[in-house]
């Protein structure tokens, strides 16, 4: 149960991070996405597989990503995820929403502080 709750809190944020990563870097496999997020967060964000892959699957089911098997630079078989047009639209909308929310939170926390 508690596992699910954590995933729930993270879910929207994680979706946004994954979409943004794929929008900037182009098609990536799961490990590359995780590594990129870890790198960007300075090691603060270490995703385990149980969080990352179901999220990728969900985004794919929603038609925001498209997953295809391909080959990595050193000739390994991997599943690459690419953002779709619907995914870009979603990303745009969520980005705006996120900024709005962040502004509100900042203002609120500032006043309270």
């Amino acid at each position, binding site marked *: 149960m508690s596992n699910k709750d954590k995933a729930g809190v993270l879910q929207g944020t994680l979706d946004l991070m994954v979409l943004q990563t794929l929008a900037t870097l182009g098609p990536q496999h799961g490990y590359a996405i*995780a*590594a990129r997020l870890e790198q960007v967060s300075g090691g603060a964000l*270490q995703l385990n*597989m*149980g969080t990352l892959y*179901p999220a990728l*699957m969900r985004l794919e089911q*929603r038609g925001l990503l498209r997953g295809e098997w391909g080959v990595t630079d050193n000739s390994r078989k991997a599943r690459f995820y690419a953002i779709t047009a619907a995914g870009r639209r979603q990303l745009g909308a969520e980005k705006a929403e996120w900024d709005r929310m962040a502004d509100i939170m900042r203002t609120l926390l500032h006043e309270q502080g």
Partner: protein
Amino acid sequence: MATMREWLRRLSGTIRRDRADQDLEEELRLHVELLAEAAQRQGHSPEAAARRARLQAGGTAQAMESMRDQRGLPWLEDLGRDAQLGLRMMRRNPLFSAVAILSLALGIGANTAIFSLVNPLMLRALPVREPAQLVELLSKFPGEPRNNAFRWNVYEHFRDHNHVFSDLIGLLPRRAEVSGDALAAETVSAEYATGNFFPALGLEPALGRLIRAEDDQLNADVVAVVSWSYWQNRFNHHPGIVGRRIVVDGAPATIVGVAPRAFRSVLFGSRPDVWLPAAVGRRNDSRFALGVVGRLKPGVSIEQARAEMRVLDRWRIEEAAKTAPFLRQLTIELEPAGAGLSLLRDYYGRPLLALMAIVALLLLIACTNVAGMLLARGAARQRELAVRVSLGAAGFRLMRQMLTESVLLAGLGGALGTALAYFGVDALVRIVMSGRGVVGLAGPLQQIEAHLDAEVLMFTAAVSLLAGILFGIAPAWHALRSAPAQSLRETGTAGDARSKRLFGRGLIVAQVAISLVLLSTAGVFISHLWNLRNVGLGFNRHGVLLVTLDPSRSGMAPERLFQPYQDLLSRLEAIPGVRAATLSGVTPIHGAGSARFVNVPGFQEPPMARQYTSLNWVAPRYFETFGTPLVAGRDFQFADQGQARVAIVNQSMARYYFGDGNAVGRQFTLDGQDRAYEVIGVVGDAKYLDLHNAAPRTVYLNAFQESRMFSHRFSIRTDTAPSAVAGDVQRTVAEVMPAMAITRVTTLADQVDASIVPERLVAMLSMLFGSLGAVLVGIGLYGLLAYTVSRRTNEIGIRIALGATRHDMIKMVLAGAAGLVAAGLIVGAPFAWWGRQLASRWVVNLPIDNPWPIAFGAIAMMVVGLAAAYLPARHAARVAPAEALRHL
């Protein structure tokens, strides 16, 4: 939108497994490998790197599980697993499963079959605008069936003076002869419709236009609208049908359009091919009458409309009472007509609702029965369930598993029941159609459309699901409550909780009680039917063959039929096995008759009390043929022909007009005639039009004294089965009058039965369902007793070892069964009593004072109980003490 797509993908993922487990595993393996390589690059040893990678990635198994959940719909997959397990459990107990499924199939099938008749007749709305606003007008005379038939001037009066209907429409079903270019002349089903008919119903043409107000004028050109199916069958959907000239009943008409496809008729069971303006009917028939339907104005209730129409109706009653004062007893009634007009509802509505209640109770017995069996089996499965609980199965999951099993049973029962109903519905429709039809507007009833359509199947599915939950919930709850530790410790044979045993017995008691209600209700309907068929008929319905002749195309004038008919009668009486032969204008319970006012010199009566007297024109030996006793005077003779006019009256007529004095020798005239008839005989009262009304005052006249012969119904009293002489009779008719057509051959018993189809249907089906219920109770009781005896084998062995006789053991088991049945009877008796009151309110003239139906039900249940106890009792008596004690 995206979420919706996700769910669709997940649903298809459940069914298709679009990404296999292998595929997912491969993706995860790569992730771990890449992590390990990264760690190695940071200088870790391969082993340490692999360990770090596994730690950071998290468990592969958990990730797989989350992905599987995300891939499909986990609850759906669980359901599939539960269903598979349920099917396995069923296969393991084939006898139990077969009995349970069959019980449920009978219950659900019966409900499906009855509902498939109730739905079109009472529930399904007409495919017209706002069908709920439609009401039908019905004229009612005390003691007679209601009728939706109003003369044109009455319709006009209602239409122009009411304030409650936004539209008042009229229609009349008729047969019409249609011909035209490239159209073979044929008789089709037609309907006269008033000019506002189609607009008021909000119907749009499929092609061309529909009948409009200006078409319904006496001087307008005749237009015709055809049905979609007629357009399809006769014109192959050719759009050129609009403007086609046809000939309807000898008059030219122009087809102007096609009615919408979904619309058949507002008249239930009718499928007209052609609609014509009502003006056509008015031109041809001065007594033109039509069925009237109103659309309530928004906000007007049916009660308000009733009140207003009662006031408006005074005009009609006064008009009618000018010629027949007793018609002041006429009233007008309004009924909802959103499901279409049907006098069938008056005849079948309540019987069908009674049957619906009966089959619901039957299903309840079946459910209770299966619940009892599941409960007993639950005891056997307790150890399995306890093990599963100990191994960590959540109580909720177990309960769901049990419910899935019971719903699965119900589903299979429902599927089999639907198959049973498929044949049942056909039989039901055949029975209903075998009736003589209803009088009045009903017109030609073509076909009752009762199918196992989508609505019925949805009903069946809902009933099955409900049944599955109903009988599954108690056993599931019991299974859940069984404490795992205790069950595992005990040996299983003694693991029954006391409450569960009581519950099992309670189920049997409930079944006996419901069954008593069913059987006693069936008993009421059967005794009602018996009374209708046998009490106060005034004639003997057995052993009479009825043959109707039609001389219209024989070339024989009615004035010249006397001698051939007399010859035919004597030839018929010469046929071996024939005791008497006669002819008459009306035969008993045919449903059609003739009536007049009678004037008796010196007899005074208040105008309101003046009523029609039924008439029949008969030949000599009529009363002998029908077994109606001649109480005084003499029968008619052929020799009366040309003599002074004579008549025979029944006892009611004699008592009413001639008091206690002898009617023989007295005289009367028929209203509107001045020639007098002399009464020469008095006969017993006999029912005339139908069985539900007492014998009316009746006058019999000699068919051979009229100027023309218009009685063509021959009746033959036989010593053997009447059908045995039918061939000889038809040959004899052909010999005497080769050109004569025979239009109908039947028996009096069949004619009587055709008039009471609703009563027969209810009696037959209630008995059938009552018997099925009793058999189910027997099976349930047998199951419980067999289980109890097997559980008590040890105890019985000890008792026998201690000196109890086998006789004592038999007595013990039988007494147990009798106790359960008796408890059920005590519980059921008040309900049976109440059910009988209900039934008597629904069906007139029910013999409610008769205690026999309940006694019959009680005795039948006792017999069933003892029969069910027989095998277990014998089993108990055969327990070998040594064998039983070894198992202790």
